[in-house]
């Protein structure tokens, strides 16, 4: 056991230099926090906080948030062709697609077509992996950038077709 000691190391130990180094870092942050501007979520600034309800974050373009069923913008009809792939591919079985064979007019001809009747999406169990929107052949089902999904009852977490097409009403708090 050989210990090397220099006067410098002894002194720095006695004068608590190691502690003061750390204290200097935190004091610098404290001083900077008092004078620097804050834009929110900027890692180069002294204060990183973004005040959430007041300052809303820009969610990534590819964000997998609230589900949505898209309608054809020209006709206003659902893009869903009731193929059931989303329900099959979902690892946690949150989607159930209701379908019916209906007679529809296509110009002069009348033909039978599978159409969507109901669509249920249980957001309480959804893990937002995005497999359903990846597999959707008509780009109907989409996970949007909406991320505030809280509701006041469990039943409200099961979204029906109407909610999926219109989206839920999100109260945006400004304060």
């Amino acid at each position, binding site marked *: *056991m*050989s*210990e*090397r*000691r*220099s006067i410098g*190391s*002894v002194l*720095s*130990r*006695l004068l608590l230099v190691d*502690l003061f180094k*750390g*204290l200097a*870092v*935190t*004091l610098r*942050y*404290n001083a900077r*926090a*008092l004078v620097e501007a*804050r834009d929110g979520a900027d890692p180069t600034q*002294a*204060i*990183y*906080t973004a*005040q959430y309800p007041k300052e809303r974050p820009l969610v990534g373009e590819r964000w997998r948030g609230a589900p949505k069923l898209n309608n054809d913008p020209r006709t206003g009809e659902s893009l869903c062709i009731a193929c059931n792939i989303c329900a099959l591919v979902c690892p946690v079985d949150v989607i159930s697609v209701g379908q019916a064979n209906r007679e529809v007019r296509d110009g002069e001809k009348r033909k039978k077509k599978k159409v969507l009747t109901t669509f249920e999406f249980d957001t309480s169990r959804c893990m937002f992996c995005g497999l359903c929107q990846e597999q959707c052949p008509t780009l109907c089902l989409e996970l949007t950038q909406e991320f505030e999904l809280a509701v006041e009852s469990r039943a409200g977490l099961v979204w029906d077709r109407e909610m999926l097409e219109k989206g839920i009403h999100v109260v945006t708090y400004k*304060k």
Partner: protein
Amino acid sequence: MSGPIALHWAPQAASPPPPPPVVPSWSPVELIESIGVPHGFAEYVVWPAVQLALILFVVLTAVAYLTYLERKVAAFIQARLGPMRVGPVGLLQPLADGLKLLSKEDLVPAGADRFVYLAAPVLAVTAALGLLVLVPFGAAWGTVTDINIGLLFLLAVASIGVLGIVLAGWASNSKYALLGAMRSSAQLVSYEVALGLALVGPLLFARTLSMQEIVESQRFTGLWWVAVQPLAFVVYFIGSLAETNRAPFDLPESESELVAGFHVEYSGFRWSLFFMAEYANIIITSAIAATVFLGGWSMPGLETAVSWIAGTDATTPLYSTAFTLLSIGVFAGKVLVLVYVVMWVRWTLPRYRYDQLMDLGWRWLIPVSLANILISAFAFLVAMRPDQGGLLGLVEVTKNGLWMGWAGTAYFLLVNLATFAMAAWLLAKLNKTAWSTDLHALRRVEALRRAGRLATAEEARAE
């Protein structure tokens, strides 16, 4: 008395000790008497009651706002904003917290010692708030009372607060609370020793235990005792961190190990009583440090500032009022700086372990403060004027306090630093394993020590 050594140079002889500094003579008691209240009643009942009410109000508000300050300081250190939602920049947050705590259920755990459980927080907070009577918040009528054993009384009552913590931990019928209480009783008992011993150093210079007189003595000498007793100040500060359960010594409530320690079972208002006691204790220990080491309410230039406002006649009510209020401001400023340092330290440093805390207390702080007393006392004796029993004549004891020039100050500072070096050297010899500056060697030694201990523990189990 002068002895055979020819040391009859007397630098103080040219400048005799000055007269004692002015103290305003008017007090609001006269105001109360002027409306017809009898003298004794006014001085011993009415005016103290007013003072106590004021102090309780101010200190309880201060305690509430210390929580706010703590959260803000923590936030700014940690790149956050802290409370911002209740009121402008969160200024009403303490109020909201208080309301929330008041409206919460007051739980008593099953199997708890009900009476003790309910009484413990009251004991803790009473001990803390009772100390306020003796804190010299300001000059003249800025303090409630001043007794000749003031500091002793403060230390004695402060240690009752420990009982509250111990009883709370015991009565909770919870293992975590019990461990917290055990830790805290050990910690507080051992650190109180260091704390008390650290205070003896400056008392050598103040030559009194009365809080007001300690301030006056520093005012008279024109020196804060931290200048001649820096070592004692450091020891006192470290001890007071431990005494108030603040990081890096917050073991009794160490959140990550014992969840919340002794108050783990408490809820609602009783919990907030512990919280209040903690913050009140921070204020008190900081106030004692400010009084004993940092000159209390005195400040160079205070008298000048007062004379600008109120002239130089010390008997007028205006002078007295200005003096008292300014001195209270100075005192509050000093306490606030110390409180900030306490918070700053808390949010930077990790937490000691229980046994390391004991090591630090018993093997370092107590020997250092003992050595400090011994050497300071000896140095003091040597430095006194020959006709008063000393040798060097650097210090003169007058009836108003000590008188020493710059030579005396430098002498005591040097002695203190020498004490520091000697104590450190001696302790380093004594505490070998706890003291090494070579990191790699330390790590090897520690590793071996631990490995040895591990092996014995396994052997013990095998038997």
